């Protein structure tokens, strides 16, 4: 009788383990049934580096401009995130939403630049520009060739009289 109880217990234990295993492996593989760019978390199609990518790229980004007209690359922290791709997504969203969203983002970036007392490199930035650029990525990296740029929005960096 005890042997039969052990057998039943062993069978039940394996059934539970089998269901958990099939469930989790199945859930991990299930995204293959979705469109490959239909991403999710944590169940993903893992489409990293998969989308066909032309070398010619149109993208928007933020620039800091100093009093004497020099242009600075800003850090993702000035957009409220430490991640480059998230900064990219934030700017693209604002650009897609129209003029008021672009100006709101520009103003938010300007506020962060002004408040970033620790970053001496940006203390002379007086203006923020949201820019759309069309670049050949291969030429840019290989030869430093900058493509055409157009300004979406611009705003002043609020500075106290002490910080000027």
């Amino acid at each position, binding site marked *: 009788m005890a042997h039969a109880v052990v057998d039943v217990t062993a069978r039940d234990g394996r059934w539970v383990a089998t269901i958990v295993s099939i469930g989790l492996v199945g859930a991990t*593989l299930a*995204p293959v049934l979705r469109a*490959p760019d239909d991403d999710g978390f944590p169940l993903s199609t893992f*489409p990293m580096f998969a989308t066909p990518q032309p070398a010619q790229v149109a*993208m928007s980004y933020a620039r800091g401009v100093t009093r004497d007209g020099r242009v600075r*690359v800003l850090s993702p922290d000035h957009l409220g995130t430490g991640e480059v791709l998230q900064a990219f997504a934030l700017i693209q969203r604002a650009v897609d939403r129209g003029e008021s969203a672009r100006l709101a983002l520009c103003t938010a970036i300007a506020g962060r630049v002004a408040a970033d007392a620790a970053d001496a490199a940006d203390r002379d930035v007086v203006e923020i520009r949201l820019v759309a650029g069309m670049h050949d990525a291969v030429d840019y990296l290989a030869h430093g060739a900058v493509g055409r740029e157009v300004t979406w929005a611009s705003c002043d960096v609020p500075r106290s009289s002490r910080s000027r």
Partner: protein
Amino acid sequence: MGELRCAAELAQPMSRLARWWFAPAPPERLAALRIAIGGFAVLWMIARLPEVVSVARLPAAVFAPVGVIRVLGAPLPVIAVAAIAVATVGLLVAFTAGLGYRVTAPLAAIGLLWTLAYRSSWGMVFHTDNLLVLHVIALALAPAADAWTIRRGAPARAAPAAGYGWAIKLLAAITCAAYLLAGIAKLRLAGLSWLDGGQLRNQIAVDNLRKALLGGTVAPLARFLVSHPDGLAVCSLLTMGIELGAPLALLGGRFARIWAWGAWWFHAGVVLAMNVWFPYPLAGVAFLPLIEAEHLVGWPARWWRSRGMRAARAR
């Protein structure tokens, strides 16, 4: 009669599959995975805390919930996000130590899933986190605290009926499934043209252009690879081989070790070419289910004990 023969023929490979899946393994191996994966999760969560709070401060207009976060109609207050993240760190510490495992492990898995899904709900899904979350969920459903826990005076547990091997196979299968899906996604989105090196060159160029324009760091080999693309076709083939060949790692032994090293070198190459870091595989933790992890994870404790024994003999 034909149906009976068919059922009998199906039963044989199913029985072989079950024997393989439930092949015995020591509880220390599963416990070593709990410690390594849980320990990584603790460090990862602590490192991500400032960023989790930072994205929680983004405007509601950019909130784009994914996964379980879809239950929310609007972002949570920042204090709630921070509280959940901090509580998750505490639960993960208990998970790693094997304390109150039946309660802390599922709660740690839920907290980790929630916090990292929330982090990915602001316009960008972070693929660095998927495998870690899936592994912690799997461990939370497994008897991973039957060995190597901080539990003084507790009686030893009887081995579970299903053993421990299945849970280790499950972790390994999840790792392999993730890489297989990545390879399939490339073929579905770009087709065989992904293999000629041209696509890879453009990916490297565009990714680094983004970094250059948005304040990130351009990868150390990016400019060289973009200017000298001849070897990129080989890199593309190797990448596809590693991703589509991932299920071979489940054969174990030498296959598993070769594949794990190949996948690790793939990630090292991605750092050098694109400055894109996948810390979980780069730390080797993602591949531990494919090897006998108890020898690696238990080494510091064995070394410490052997020092004590040598000192006692010397006295």
